[in-house]
């Protein structure tokens, strides 16, 4: 029971914190769709001043200005793509949390895939190496030695048996 209570309390607080907006601004929308787009866009645009926050999270004056501009553009009927392009022209690709594929972001997009491929290659080579070892055929000389060793082992065994008897 205590456990359940604790879990519920933890959930309440963490979820609540995650959703709190940094500032106490109030924007009035005409439709729920506009509000949804506002929340989506401000959660997708990065604050250039405080670089690890979205403009929805950040309390920097610059983020306030950017939120205001996003709001104005939504109310003026601009599409999401237009608003994002507007910000990109001014602050660079950096401002959008979904970076485009280009030369400097190649490693970002394909790095994980590359690591995965390298892993696969390592595993394949490794498995092959083991199989090769297992199936290796002995030369005539090696086979003779093997037989000699095994024969010696056998005679030892029989000697031991004699002793115990």
């Amino acid at each position, binding site marked *: 029971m205590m456990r359940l209570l604790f879990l519920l309390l933890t959930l309440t607080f963490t979820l609540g914190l995650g959703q709190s907006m940094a500032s106490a601004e109030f924007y009035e929308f005409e439709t729920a769709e506009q509000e949804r787009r506002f929340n989506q866009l401000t959660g997708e645009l990065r604050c*250039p*001043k405080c*670089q690890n926050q979205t403009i929805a999270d950040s309390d920097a004056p*610059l983020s306030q200005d950017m939120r205001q501009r996003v709001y104005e553009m939504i109310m003026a009927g601009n599409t999401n793509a237009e608003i994002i392009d507007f910000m990109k022209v001014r*602050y*660079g*690709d*950096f401002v959008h949390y979904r970076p485009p594929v280009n030369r400097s972001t190649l490693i970002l997009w394909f790095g994980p895939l590359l690591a995965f491929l*390298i892993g696969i290659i390592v595993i394949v080579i490794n498995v092959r190496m083991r199989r090769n070892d297992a199936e290796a055929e002995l030369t005539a000389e090696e086979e003779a030695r093997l037989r000699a060793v095994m024969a010696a082992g056998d005679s030892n065994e029989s000697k031991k048996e004699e002793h115990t008897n």
Partner: protein
Amino acid sequence: MSPKLRLAFFLMPLVLFLLVAVFLFKGLFSDPTRLDSALVGREVPQFELPDLYQPDVTHDNRIIGTRPLLINVWATWCPTCYAEHTFLNQLLAEEQVYIIGLNYKDDSRGAAVRWLQNLGDPYAINLFDETGLLALDLGVYGAPETYVVDQHGVILYRHVGDLNERVWRQEVGPIYYRAMRDAGLPIPEHRRELVL
């Protein structure tokens, strides 16, 4: 497996390690807060802003594109701008650098005017951007920032942070004076080395 392949296989972790090490080592010396302006190579955006001293006088793009110049973004709430101000005065006094001041979202017009009266006014023209209109179009994300604009009104460079002797000599000065040379304007004797 041939011995060569086997060698390559065993060297792979070392090679990967070296690659990552070089990448991370370079990261030690890069400044993550430095952003390249998206506006380099473009014209200064359209604007219409009041003069700082005279509210009834407005300036627009016609003040740009006549000669190479700097646009310096500043505000009285910005401590680094204070540190930078002496150097801007020096640029005007010793090199006649043409600087347009963009007062960015200042506390009040009065505070900005007082600042210039007390510390000296290095700006040829003073723009008063109360709401950050032009600053947003320029992609300003902090003050001070300095833009180098050529004689055609195209932005050549953006420097974020204060201007000082080192930055001027190594980064901003050469770009400004190359634009001056291209425009056929004189370069002070002691700065000729910057465009060589």
